[in-house]
């Protein structure tokens, strides 16, 4: 073995990319990834067809397809995000990772983006939906693209919440359940039934403000072809606040 008494400080970014690659490939090392991708696709497509009646509507548009994405991400982002830190704690590898020459933030960013890319790959596999709509009719491609952008951002927001849940426990099951419940609340906010409940307790103006915090309310403009600053900022804020908070939790260990 070559002797290298003064092993150099690694170049910046090496650790980030190494973590990102490991984490992304990690999803495919277990059957989880394939189950996940299959479940996401099956639900995304069957919800659009059977509940959203996307075909019967006779309009060449994917808004009825994206309508259910907050539900899907609320369930599946915590499923993919549960392992982020919980698995490191359970295996004892957190002690290894954090005594390697990497900052917690670099490791956290690598993990987060790997998980987000994984969710993005699930979304990419639904592209045949878009092609089908293009084949059957003459949709506005820009609207479809903005729908995908919105859905991807929505996934990031749910992942941010999942990251916090994962940083708090060594059990992936607990991380998943708490992450799902938190996302579920954000899905409910903005739905009719939930609004009625809120109207009983708060003034109309307040209810409106609360509704703005729901996932669907923020995704809706994207499905109409609008990439607005406000919902974009909302999703990114939730995503990066989750990333930041989870990293602080890990750093405090």
């Amino acid at each position, binding site marked *: *073995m070559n002797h290298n008494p003064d*092993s150099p400080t*690694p170049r910046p970014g090496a650790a980030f990319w190494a973590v990102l690659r*490991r984490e992304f490939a990690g999803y495919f090392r277990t059957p989880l990834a394939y189950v996940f991708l299959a479940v996401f696709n099956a639900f995304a497509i069957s919800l659009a067809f059977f509940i959203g009646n996307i075909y019967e509507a006779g309009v060449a548009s994917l808004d009825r397809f994206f309508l259910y994405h907050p539900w899907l991400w609320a369930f599946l982002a915590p499923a993919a995000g549960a392992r982020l830190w919980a698995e490191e704690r359970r*295996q*004892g590898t957190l002690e*290894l990772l954090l005594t390697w*020459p990497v900052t917690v933030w670099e490791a956290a960013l690598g993990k987060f983006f790997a998980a987000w890319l994984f969710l993005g790959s699930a979304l990419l596999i639904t592209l045949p939906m878009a092609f089908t709509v293009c084949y059957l009719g003459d949709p506005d491609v820009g609207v479809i693209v903005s729908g995908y952008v919105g859905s991807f951002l929505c996934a990031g927001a749910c992942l941010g919440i999942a990251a916090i849940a994962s940083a708090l426990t060594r059990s992936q099951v607990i991380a998943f359940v708490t992450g799902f419940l938190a996302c579920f609340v954000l899905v409910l906010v903005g739905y009719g039934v939930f609004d009625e409940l809120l109207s009983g307790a708060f003034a109309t103006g307040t209810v409106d403000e609360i509704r703005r915090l729901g996932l669907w309310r923020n995704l809706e403009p994207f499905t109409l072809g609008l990439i607005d600053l406000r919902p974009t900022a909302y999703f990114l804020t939730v995503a990066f606040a989750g990333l930041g908070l989870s990293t602080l939790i890990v750093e405090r260990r």
Partner: protein
Amino acid sequence: MALIEVSQLQKSYGAIHAVKNVSFSVDRGEVVGFLGPNGAGKSTTMKLLTGYLRPDAGTAVVAGFDVVENPVAAKAHLGYSPEGAPAYGEMTVREFLRFAAELRGLANPAQRVADTLKLCRLEEVAGQSVDTLSKGYRMRVGFAQAVIHDPAVLILDEPTDGLDPNQKFEVRRILKDMAARKAVIVSTHILEEIDELCTRVIVIAQGEVRCDESKERFLQRGADLNQVFRKLTA
């Protein structure tokens, strides 16, 4: 300057003073045996020294870099295998070492992995996932990731724990081969290991250094090392 400088290190978990005012230094070529009862503060001292935990007070300097002020530089010169040699179980041995090499930004990671597999005699299990390995191999994988970058400072928490005599011999052999060029700290419960492996002994009990001396002096304390140990840690 010594490769490891620990000065007045302190750490509490709530009301428990796990480490009270621990100071020592280790030079290149020294292999320090860390002895002490369970819960004495050995592992906590190692966790502080490797930057996993933050000390409440005091400093730890590795290869000239303070682990709190300059953690990434300190950790680049450090190889550490925590107790139980944790590793990413779903990865193969080769993938795991490759990840360690890439994260450390080593030049020519494939060559480093090949060299390390050979050095630690892991070649025959290189394609197996870590989860499927026997304890002996797992411990060696933990050791392998700690030496892949040929660090100046090597810290091993019970590297021979649970190994059979042949496996223990093997780990000691590898360690002795590289010890002359490094500052090494090895925690152990096996008192016989002192004579085989170490050049110096530090006994820790109740979070304090009870004894810090050369192996020769330590062995002169008595013929029955168990008794010596009991007396020192009482």
